[in-house]
């Protein structure tokens, strides 16, 4: 149980650092770390395939997309960082306070969940569920991926022409 507490604390801390840090690059790194910690948690919750997806796609691909976007949108000087730090502190000082208060309030609640487990054994093989039972989801994923690819191509094509 201790390891779970450590993982969840690390998850919240990295998410907080992602939101609070001034540099966008560090924010993107923080997001990738949050994804990696979430993948560990998912692995501990008996979902290894989703954890692998989370690790490879969210901590890898999305991180690369963010790095490209941050690189293109320009650099920030040290003077600007000092100025931004002051402004950011003014806007974000409330966030750690809210998170700490929410954590204290939530840990004080004594929660006992009662869930109805399925009476008959259910299929838990992801491959069978994805290919045999949720094939409409797969079709939707393919359509969305194609739409996304077209969208990105159109957006970047316009960029190239200029």
């Amino acid at each position, binding site marked *: *149980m201790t390891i779970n507490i450590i993982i969840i604390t690390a998850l*919240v801390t990295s998410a907080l650092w992602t*939101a609070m840090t001034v540099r966008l690059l560090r*924010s993107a790194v923080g997001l990738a770390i949050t994804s990696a910690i*979430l993948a560990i948690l998912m692995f501990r*919750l008996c979902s290894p395939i989703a954890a692998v997806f989370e690790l490879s796609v969210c901590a890898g691909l999305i991180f690369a997309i963010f790095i490209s976007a941050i690189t293109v949108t320009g650099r920030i000087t040290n003077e600007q960082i000092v100025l931004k730090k002051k402004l950011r502190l003014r806007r974000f000082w409330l966030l750690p306070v*809210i998170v700490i208060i929410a954590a204290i309030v939530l840990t004080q609640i004594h929660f006992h969940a009662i869930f*109805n487990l399925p009476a008959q054994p259910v299929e838990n093989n992801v491959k069978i569920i994805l290919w045999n039972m949720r094939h409409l989801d797969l079709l939707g994923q393919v359509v969305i991926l194609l739409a996304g690819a077209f969208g990105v191509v159109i957006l970047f094509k316009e960029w190239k022409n200029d």
Partner: protein
Amino acid sequence: MTNDMSQLFWMCSIGGILVFIIGIYCILVTFNLIRAIIGLELLTKTVTLFLILAGYVTGRTGLAQALAITLIVIEVVVIAIAAGVILCVFRHNKTIDVKLLRNIKG
């Protein structure tokens, strides 16, 4: 449902709620478009966590994983399109600060 499972469910729920609060605050307070997407990303992480958690406590980990994979695919497409739109905004306005975007119609 065992006591350990109930405890784990509640701990993960607390973590998820806290990450959700951070994501919402990040979206509401920031003026930077990239940081707004990062906030959105934090929100989707919470949803993924709750999906997997629901599958774990009800014994339907396979279904939860299938839904989580679908969510992750959609998340990637949303982020890629949003990044492309941000690049277009930057090209036209030379800034991604929402306060400085004066020439948006509507």
